[in-house]
């Protein structure tokens, strides 16, 4: 009993240290400007909603909701693209037979490790030729071509665990691969699709590099790019409050998705590394 209690205390202590930066961020977003950056503690004598008010009052150009909308469009498009095309490719790799399956599967695994920088400049040139730079296309279109091979792999692993007997039964009843996919595999593969959707959403929501390269007009900026704008102002303490308020707001969707689906994320992560 005492050992148990000690264990909980130790875990909570380590957890407290780990989560301190996040708590500090949230606390700071409610403090008046002057006392923010230099305070170590999480509590202040006076708390204020002023920082949030000044972010949300709509006086900025473009208004803050615009950044949220842009980030949502990009992340939403990426989610749809990944879920649809990665599950299609995964089904083919896991269940169908075709001559090039082994080499193509090996190639797919290799692309998971490929640093994106090696295709960056030609891709940029392609999108520039197509007149798509400074639009959301370069951020969303690649997801509709199943370029996030990690998720293809995740779903292949998942489909391989499903009992093959179901497929065979359907086949004996005269179903072709397309109907087997639609009526048997797809309903069963839902957990892997949810995992894919949530990871895609969070990673795209957080993504900075690609958005930095492709987006530049003020009304097309996403949240990470808008937040980046505060770096220039940061030498003046006056901008700390709004910056932290917007930071907190930008993390809320991630935390909500995480709270709702953490089981899928943790499972997906654990299986990707262990089973196979």
């Amino acid at each position, binding site marked *: 009993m005492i050992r148990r209690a000690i264990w909980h205390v130790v875990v909570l202590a380590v957890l407290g240290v*780990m989560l301190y*930066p996040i708590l500090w961020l949230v606390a700071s977003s409610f403090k008046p400007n002057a006392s923010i950056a230099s305070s170590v503690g999480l509590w202040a004598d006076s708390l204020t909603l002023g920082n949030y008010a000044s972010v949300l009052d709509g006086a900025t150009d473009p208004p803050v909701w615009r950044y949220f909308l842009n980030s949502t469009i990009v992340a939403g498009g990426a989610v749809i693209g990944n879920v649809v095309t990665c599950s*299609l490719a995964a089904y*083919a790799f896991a*269940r169908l037979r075709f001559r090039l399956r082994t080499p193509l599967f090996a190639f797919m695994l290799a692309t998971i490790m490929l640093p994106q*920088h090696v295709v960056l400049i*030609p891709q940029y040139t392609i999108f520039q030729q197509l007149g798509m730079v400074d639009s959301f296309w370069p951020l969303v279109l690649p997801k509709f071509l199943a370029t996030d091979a990690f998720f293809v792999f995740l779903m292949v692993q998942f489909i391989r665990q499903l009992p093959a007997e179901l497929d065979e039964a359907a086949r004996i009843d005269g179903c072709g691969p397309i109907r087997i996919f639609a009526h048997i595999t797809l309903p069963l593969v839902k957990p892997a699709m949810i995992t894919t959707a949530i990871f895609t959403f969070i990673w795209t929501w957080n993504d900075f*590099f690609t958005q930095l390269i492709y987006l530049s007009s003020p009304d097309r900026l996403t949240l990470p790019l808008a937040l980046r704008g505060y770096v220039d102002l940061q030498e003046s303490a006056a901008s700390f409050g709004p910056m932290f308020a917007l930071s907190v707001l930008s993390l809320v969707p991630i935390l909500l998705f995480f709270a709702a689906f953490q089981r899928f994320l943790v499972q997906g992560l*654990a299986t990707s590394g262990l089973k196979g």
Partner: protein
Amino acid sequence: MSARPSTLERERPAPPAVPSRTSYGERPGVAYLFLSPWVAGVVLLTVGPMLASLYLSFTDYDLFTAPSWVGFENYARMFTTDVHFLNAVWATVKYVLLSVPVQLLAALAVALLLDRASRLQGLYRSAFYAPSLLGASVAVALVWRAMFSADGAADRFLSFFGVRTGGWVTDPDLALLMLVLLGIWQFGAPMVIFLAGLKQIPAELYDAASVDGAGWWRRFWSVTVPMLSPVIFFNLVLDTIRAFQVFNAAFIVSNGTGGPGDSTLFYTLYLWQKGFVDFDMGYASAMAWVLLLGIALVTTLIFRSARSWVHYGGGDR
């Protein structure tokens, strides 16, 4: 996040994903129908651009005029006259060497701590995992920058102990260290994988070791570490590859400059500067290929070393 055939395939003997009986009368074309988006992506966005960037790496290219062939000049410039390039390599190597081992140790330590029957285990695990999801965001990088700036929270805290740093952001040695700390802070992802690995170690092994009189430390080294070695290996490979490509935090902390004194000029940050500030895209392509070769080399070395320390169930290899 990524994975590799050899770690993943080895544990399970070649999965017969499709029963090896006769054809079901399915047309082979159907498979390619399912694969068509992926194949289009491979051709248009992976293989094509890879070949193009290999070509561009031997040219002088600024996006707006046609590339002109310069032979190995870009590569030669990197390793001879370009001081910033060598600084970038050095900063990145230091980051990888400092952050990856400490992050994995922290992940393993917390996984061992959490590996205990408790109703709250799932909750704790998720809470430790959260920084991994948040850490890559610009918001957290801004927090880091604010906390470690001159007279910031980190400074105030250290001054309780009589240490005065005068701001980490502007100090060449400490600026890199604060990025390393941010990297270590995100140990949740490997921790989750370690924890899942720990659960797969059969309890009989620990019982047998205890019967033979092995203490905690002995059980850790003789049972846990060998049994967990494939997972350690997997995390090591993933983390190393990821660490070579860090960008966001260095960009935010140094406002895109890699300063002070190139101390946070990570490889990808310099690549971005060359490609998208200077529009020296031939040079940036060459840098991308050097990065690919560097990562491939390091990964190969890790795979080579794996023969001597990674144990796959049963056989003593």
